């Protein structure tokens, strides 16, 4: 029997839908899970995904992708890339795997919600494939780091991180719980696929793949490029849903979901990707600065995607454009200074050559962020390590769960955005974080930040030891300088030269 061409049957098969007779439409698609937009089943049948793929095609292509990524891994296993890599690069891998791998599994459940509860048949089809994508990403990003677990305990955090109360993981979970684990199917399509995956995963996976290839880590480069090919397909699930909502008079609700998710994604990437690109990746292997990546992959792409869709730029776009040159410097300084609370060893990235690069990419860096680093460097050079570690907690934002920070030194501009709600004082790192809270206070009000938990006595003893225990950081796992402060020798030598002259 001749096989029909795909396009001869795809639309019919794809739009085959339920006609419920024994249950009501709301029982089949409960609004809480399917989206409370009041659109009937028939309206969702016009959902038209731009990227069409059948199950047999999916299996064939995925098999080829897997064969590619796994064979590169097998071929390079004996090349001792991990053993010979710059410690800063190892930290990139550890941060990436811990923050991402189990989140991919969680994303499979978000895709499964669209697969079951979306009223759009096309979306159900796309997210069936998307769900399998996310399972694949979870499995690969646990399997690839596993070969290094016996060499380095911190690699165990690829699996472990997601279940811990480590502060960065609290931040990541808070964001992903908000945009994908606790939203209806349509909101997931807007917040996870359109807002987060379209732009931000591109940057993490393609940007980092470029740096990995430069650093000679072709296994990692291949792995994350392979993952990104799936992301770029299933990221398109949200677009047609947005189109439908806008056509049916729901632009304001759609816009709000985009605005909330884009801001949260930005904050998370400012701590995860910013330090990696501008500080951990060895100078000679950097392709572009984080700001340049942001401008190319997020700013330009999102502006086009949003306006093509008929949406507006988020109301905070000017704040965002200003932030991409600053916030990640603070996230790096903060995560580095509080480094015992990380599951990786952050690279300081502040040798004179690296500072010259930072000054070139971010004019004014030396007069602002550099001022704080100057004091830190002097302490390390003088052997005054007691002052090179913290003795209190940074105050974190009650929305993004990341430190509340701003520009230091000569341009000092650090602001808190407080809000009293039902007798409790909340603190936010920006006007936008506070705005997100105000959109639906009861959704967020009960959450306790790491500082709130400390003040509530949930962290015992109330010191660094207690905090590390609370964050599940065992001996051998807690972070310290990636290069064991070898960079301080350069500053020691500079001092000697200055003295001699």
């Amino acid at each position, binding site marked *: 029997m001749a096989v029909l061409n795909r396009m001869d049957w795809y639309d019919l098969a794809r739009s085959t839908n339920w006609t419920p007779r024994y249950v009501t439409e709301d029982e089949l698609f409960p609004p809480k899970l399917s989206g409370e937009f009041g659109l009937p089943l028939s309206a969702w049948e016009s959902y038209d995904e731009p990227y069409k793929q059948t199950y047999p095609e999916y299996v064939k292509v995925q098999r080829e992708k897997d064969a590619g990524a796994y064979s590169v891994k097998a071929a390079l296993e004996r090349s001792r890339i991990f053993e010979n890599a710059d410690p800063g690069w190892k930290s990139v891998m550890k941060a990436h795997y811990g923050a991402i791998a189990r989140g991919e599994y969680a994303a499979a459940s978000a895709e499964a919600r669209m697969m079951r509860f979306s009223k759009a048949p096309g979306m159900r089809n796309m997210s069936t494939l998307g769900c399998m994508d996310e399972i694949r990403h979870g499995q690969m990003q646990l399997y690839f780091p596993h070969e290094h677990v016996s060499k380095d305990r911190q690699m165990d955090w690829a699996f472990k991180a997601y279940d811990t109360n480590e502060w960065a993981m609290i931040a990541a979970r808070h964001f992903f719980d908000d945009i994908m684990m606790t939203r209806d199917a349509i909101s997931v399509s807007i917040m996870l696929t359109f807002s987060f995956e379209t732009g931000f995963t591109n940057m993490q996976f393609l940007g980092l793949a470029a740096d990995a290839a430069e650093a000679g880590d072709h296994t990692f480069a291949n792995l994350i490029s392979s993952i990104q090919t799936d992301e770029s397909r299933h990221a398109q699930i949200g677009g047609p849903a947005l189109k439908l909502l806008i056509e049916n008079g729901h632009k304001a609700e759609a816009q709000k979901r985009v605005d909330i998710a884009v801001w949260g994604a930005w904050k998370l990437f400012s701590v995860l990707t910013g330090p990696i690109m501008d500080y951990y990746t060895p100078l000679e292997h950097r392709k572009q600065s984080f700001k340049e990546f942001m401008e190319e992959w997020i700013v330009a792409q999102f502006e086009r995607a949003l306006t093509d869709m008929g949406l507006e730029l988020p109301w905070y776009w000017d704040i965002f454009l200003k932030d991409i040159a600053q916030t990640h410097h603070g996230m790096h300084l903060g995560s580095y200074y509080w480094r015992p609370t990380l599951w990786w060893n952050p690279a300081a990235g502040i040798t004179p050559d690296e500072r010259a690069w930072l000054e070139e990419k971010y004019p004014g860096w030396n007069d602002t962020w550099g*001022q704080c680093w100057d*004091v830190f460097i002097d302490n390390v050079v003088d052997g005054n390590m007691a002052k090179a570690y913290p003795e209190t907690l940074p105050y974190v934002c009650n929305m993004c769960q990341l430190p509340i920070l701003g520009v230091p030194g000569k341009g000092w501009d650090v602001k*808190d955005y407080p809000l009293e709600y039902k007798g409790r004082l909340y603190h936010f790192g920006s006007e936008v974080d506070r705005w997100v809270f105000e959109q639906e206070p009861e959704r967020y009000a009960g959450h306790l930040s790491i500082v709130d938990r400390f003040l509530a006595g949930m962290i015992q003893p109330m010191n660094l030891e207690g905090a590390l225990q609370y964050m599940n950081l065992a001996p051998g796992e807690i972070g310290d300088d990636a290069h064991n402060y070898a960079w301080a020798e350069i500053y020691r030598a500079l001092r000697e030269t200055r003295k001699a002259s």
Partner: protein
Amino acid sequence: MALFPLTSNFEGDFVLQLLPVDTENTMDEVAAAAAVHSVGRRVRDRPGHILRVRLHGSTELLPRNLKVADAGFRPTETLDIVWQAPGA
């Protein structure tokens, strides 16, 4: 006497920090406690200057001998700790 949590926003530093103080502490003592977590760590000392306390975002400095218990702060209130030049 009771432990009271405040939030320190120290001039020249980059991050807000948790600052546990005592309700009997004066503003000078609050500033000194905040300095422990910023000066000599990420902010250079400014010899001859004194440190003053103000409500976050305000321009009005609080009296140096004002006690935490009498200041009307809410728990975790954010305070700016700023340098004051000699003779200012």
